[in-house]
């Protein structure tokens, strides 16, 4: 059985309209993968940067997977939320990226997008906040039914991920 270690951190996010942000993250894999240890989802703290635009979380990720097949390679999906001074939370972006498939240290920049409502909803959003959210978050990492969605680009999330692979060459996998 081949094993994969994902060791790294969600460093932070930048490029969003406001900077008091937190992130909910998770890892999705196919059926052949089994998580041996580590937490495969979590939520970071809220970070309000004193200087600059980037919110830093440095949230650690440490996962150990074992697999019998390559299908369903792990995907990291994220939801970036903004918490304002009143304590209300507003969705700022969904994004996903594949976990790198070559061993070593990788700096990954994951782009995010937010669903766009009608123009009435957009006007209401500038005054009151809130905004449309996805009913089922697996649309973030699957391309199957996206054609009905209208989105707008938001900022980027930076991650540093280290990958260690074991026994993949026994299955004839070159990496």
């Amino acid at each position: 059985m081949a094993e994969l270690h994902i060791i790294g951190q969600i460093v932070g996010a930048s490029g969003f309209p406001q900077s008091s942000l937190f992130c909910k993250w998770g890892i999705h894999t196919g059926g052949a993968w089994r998580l041996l240890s580590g937490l495969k989802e979590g939520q970071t703290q809220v970070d309000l940067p004193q200087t600059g635009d980037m919110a830093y979380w440095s949230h650690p990720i440490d996962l150990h997977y074992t697999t019998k097949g390559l299908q369903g390679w792990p995907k990291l999906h994220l939801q970036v939320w903004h918490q304002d001074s009143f304590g209300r939370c507003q969705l700022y972006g969904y994004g996903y990226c594949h976990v790198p498939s070559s061993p070593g240290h990788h700096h990954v920049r994951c782009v995010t997008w937010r669903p766009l409502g009608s123009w009435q909803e957009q006007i209401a959003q500038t005054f009151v906040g809130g905004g449309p959210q996805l009913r089922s978050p697996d649309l973030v990492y699957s391309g199957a039914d996206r054609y009905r969605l209208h989105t707008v680009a938001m900022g980027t999330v930076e991650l540093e991920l280290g990958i260690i692979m074991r026994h993949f060459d026994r299955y004839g996998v070159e990496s």
Partner: protein
Amino acid sequence: MAINNPSVFLLMINGQIEGANFPEYDDLYCKYCFVYGHDWAPTSGLEEGISQITSKGRDSPQRMIWNFPLEITFKSTNPLGWPQIVVSVYGPDTFGNDVVRGYGATHIPFTPGQHTRTIPMFVPESTSRLQKFTSWLLGRRPEFTDPKVVAQGEGRE
């Protein structure tokens, strides 16, 4: 992963169509499809897809993000006909009709590892000025009947 038959190899592609940079247009969506030779066959994953419609971010510098997943595995015996991905981008024109904004194609990278590719996009243009005007008016731009033409070298003259 079939090493008992050494002439067959698998190519697994995991990635995303991250976004596009079209300075003049907004509210675009893209369609992708894979074009490959006779010796190739997809074993799993989706061969075609349509993304969501995306708008330019107001605060972020004029980028359009799709973040659209690409996952496919091919089985083959021969590198000839190495898969190419063909991306077509569509958007609304001034009257609200859906017209094509760009076609582009690139080969899937040959080496294992992480790669980023930027694909330049182009659109067919009519040669007569009258046709350019009527196509602007009626919202019927010239487009390819089969976008896979973009991945081939024949017939481009």
